[in-house]
């Protein structure tokens, strides 16, 4: 699909969509959002790119094969559970560490956040894998 208009639009839209999906992911705890929706958003962003520039182009941007992303995502989710274990409380127990970032005030990063990013990555790579294989194959 080599319509120039689509290409120029995608070149502009892709980063925007991805940034927005990350925003949705990060604010998941308090406002509507979270790993799943973020992942889906990112997938649609990449799909847009695939439509405009073709599937091989997407593989080029992703550099690593998608299956590794799945592994990374799952790994993250798993690792985020470990601190809970070390603390002696049950696996995946939320651990929070707060530190102040100049300018924004108190910032609390916690294991659930890591878990959420893990979810985000997995969902993203899973959907993308299926879609791209379908697209490539058709």
């Amino acid at each position: 699909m080599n319509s120039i208009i689509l290409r120029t639009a995608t070149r502009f839209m892709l980063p925007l969509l991805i940034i927005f999906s990350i925003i949705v992911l990060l604010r998941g705890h308090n406002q509507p959002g979270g790993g799943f929706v973020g992942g889906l958003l990112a997938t649609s962003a990449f799909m847009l790119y695939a439509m405009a520039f073709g599937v091989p182009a997407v593989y080029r941007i992703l550099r690593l094969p998608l299956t590794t992303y799945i592994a990374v995502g799952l790994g993250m989710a798993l690792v985020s559970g470990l601190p809970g274990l070390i603390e002696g409380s049950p696996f995946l127990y939320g651990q929070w560490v707060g530190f102040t970032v100049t300018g924004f005030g108190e910032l609390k990063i916690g294991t659930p956040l890591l878990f959420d990013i893990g979810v985000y990555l997995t969902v993203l790579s899973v959907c993308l894998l299926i879609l791209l294989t379908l697209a490539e194959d058709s």
Partner: protein
Amino acid sequence: VAMLFVLGTLALAMIGCLIRLLLGPTLPDRVVALDLLGMFAVAVIALFAILIGRPVLLSVCLIMGLILFLGTAAFALFLERRARP
């Protein structure tokens, strides 16, 4: 109270869109109808945000707006490729 009146008109518009979608002779007609219907959905959500006073719905509209066009693009792409594989 005027809001409700507008809600009604939007509903009417949606129904019209649906009719077109069902009747629409060619496929692109249906796709356009679907696209418009999606837009109406965004409008309804925006209106609803005003009604119940929760601005947080706006992000839902934002996402819908973005992704909606992806659907139509997919259709378009497919139509084109079916014409000359």
